């Protein structure tokens, strides 16, 4: 049973990591990296480390994603103030 869970979550993690690196939209990439952390926290519970699971769920999938999104929104704010780039980040 644990083996099936491990294989399922492992495959989901690898797919999410590929989406994080190859998707076109940056916001999707950021959210996919949060999904990788969330699945890792489930795996930590299966492997007998509940402290680590709590920390990873709170930090890796909540605060890291939020910090990425804040930074991206600041970058887009700077881009939209610029006249020449027409609001697009390049």
């Amino acid at each position, binding site marked *: 049973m644990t083996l099936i869970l491990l294989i399922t979550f492992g495959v989901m993690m690898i797919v999410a990591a590929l989406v994080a690196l190859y998707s076109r939209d940056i916001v999707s990439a950021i959210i996919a990296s949060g999904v990788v952390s969330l699945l890792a926290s489930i795996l930590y519970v299966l492997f007998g*480390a*509940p*402290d680590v*699971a*709590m*920390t990873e769920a*709170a*930090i890796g999938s*909540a*605060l890291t994603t*939020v*910090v990425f999104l*804040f*930074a991206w*929104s*600041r970058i*887009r*704010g*700077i881009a*939209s*103030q610029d006249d020449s780039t027409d*609001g697009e980040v390049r």
Partner: protein
Amino acid sequence: MFKRLFSLVLVGALAAAFFPLFAAIGDRADTSSLAGRYLDEGPEALGSANLVTSVIVTYRGLDTLGEVTVLFAASAGIGLVFSRMQPSPATRRTSTNHPPSELVVTGAGLLLPLITLFGIFIFVHGHLTPGGGFQGGVIVASGVLLAFLSGTLKELSHGLLAALELCAGAGYVAVGLLGLWLAGGFLDPRFLPTGEIGALFSGGAIPIIYTLIGIKVGAELSGVIDAMRQRRVSP
């Protein structure tokens, strides 16, 4: 194209170079000898039910002090980088000065006391249940984030954050020094009675140390979130 091929070859070479490490891993039936010693002596010597807490606070306590220092240095760096950036005025393309929706505001009003209480519970009970100072501090910081997003909290007073961090950090070192004078060594928590395993007042000074760490980490991460969010200046 060649750069891509080169990076692919490099990743493959790294994987092949670490192959003996991977080949030697297998399922094993018992832990290493150091872990055996910690599992054996930990509960009765320190009185805390959560062994990971006793490893972090006592057996590897100096590493935790170093980690708190690194966290402080990083949050100071982030505060420095963002202190010079001006708040962006309302821009013409992304005029997203919507107030937060009613769902968020109502939900935040209901959830904020629960989240704060939960965070405090986690770091006070760090020696009894899974959890501890870092997890509790992060939960309190995410409560502060919810307060920012829903508009409940508009400004975080930097004086209060600095005072909390100062007192918590100095208190941590002071507890360590008390351990040096009254018990076996620096950061030894046995100068308070260890009590019985499973009670709230057990584990010596471990709950005190974890509470101080929780307050410090919560204040620091709230400061980081405050520095990074974009302040909307209303026109």
